[in-house]
């Protein structure tokens, strides 16, 4: 059966409904990514919260740790550890964090940067 044979099975309103269904599906897709959008950044030093800032405007935060100064950079919708004295630089190399509940931990300097969404999700789940 060729395409034209299948096409004649669709009535005019069917095309309309099909288009509507396709648009609905397309409209749902951003949900996959937007669902984890972050609202604010929480900076901890030695386990205690030192800063809690919204991801609205760019700014820079410096935190003192046992090894030295960790510099955290906030930008609209994202945040990163810009500089850190840790030897292996894991938290710096993680780059920009954009998703809620993502975290960059600079363990040697005891500093962490976490993004939280509008409502707190779980760190982990087990069954």
């Amino acid at each position, binding site marked *: 059966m060729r395409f034209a044979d*299948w096409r004649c*099975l*669709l*009535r*005019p*309103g*069917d095309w309309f*409904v*099909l288009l509507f*269904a*396709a648009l*609905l*599906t397309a409209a*749902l*897709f951003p*949900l*996959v990514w937007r*669902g984890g959008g972050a609202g604010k950044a929480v900076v901890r030093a030695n386990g205690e919260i030192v800063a809690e800032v919204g991801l609205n405007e760019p700014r820079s935060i410096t935190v003192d740790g046992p090894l030295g100064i960790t510099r955290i950079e906030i930008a609209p919708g994202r945040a990163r550890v810009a500089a850190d004295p840790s030897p292996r630089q894991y938290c710096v190399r993680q780059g920009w964090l954009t998703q809620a509940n993502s975290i960059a931990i600079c363990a040697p300097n005891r500093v962490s940067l976490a993004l939280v969404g509008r409502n707190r*999700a779980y760190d982990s789940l087990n069954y």
Partner: protein
Amino acid sequence: MIRSTTEITLTPDADDHRIARYSAVAIALSVAEAAIPLPLPGVKPGLGNIVTLVVLMRYGWRDAAWVSLLRVFAASLLLGSFLAPGFFLSLCGALASLAALAMAVRLPRRWFGPVTMSLAASFAHIAGQLVLARLWLVPHDGVFLLSPVFALAALVFGLANGLAAARWLADDAVDQSSPASGPQAR
């Protein structure tokens, strides 16, 4: 001899036979479909619904509801999932589909054919399933993050099933217009 008062005699009429026949086809399709490996639980073609659509277009909503619900129950019994979570998801999806079909079937036939019915039913099906899953199985809004995947499946399989049903109806219409028409005419 006094007739037993507990003995109930049921005489199936033509409607019952017809519904049973269509249900049997739908159940066979559902069972056959269970053999197809699928990447994600909950995403499946729902081939049994082709039969529901054909019955809906030919005999109306009441018969379609019978065929659809009989298929859900019988197929789950055959596959061993009766009263398991999957069965309730299936049932909830079928009920939502039937509710959507009850509305869709009122649309003018000239403009809206089986594909419209199929898409309405498939989208209602995933909506019903997601609502039940959110309320009962995964009480967290996270399940809705899967909705685009289910919507895409509903779009693709809804279109495919609708076209299959339209083809079935069109082929039978051709058969009936020929002199050797089957007993299907009504």
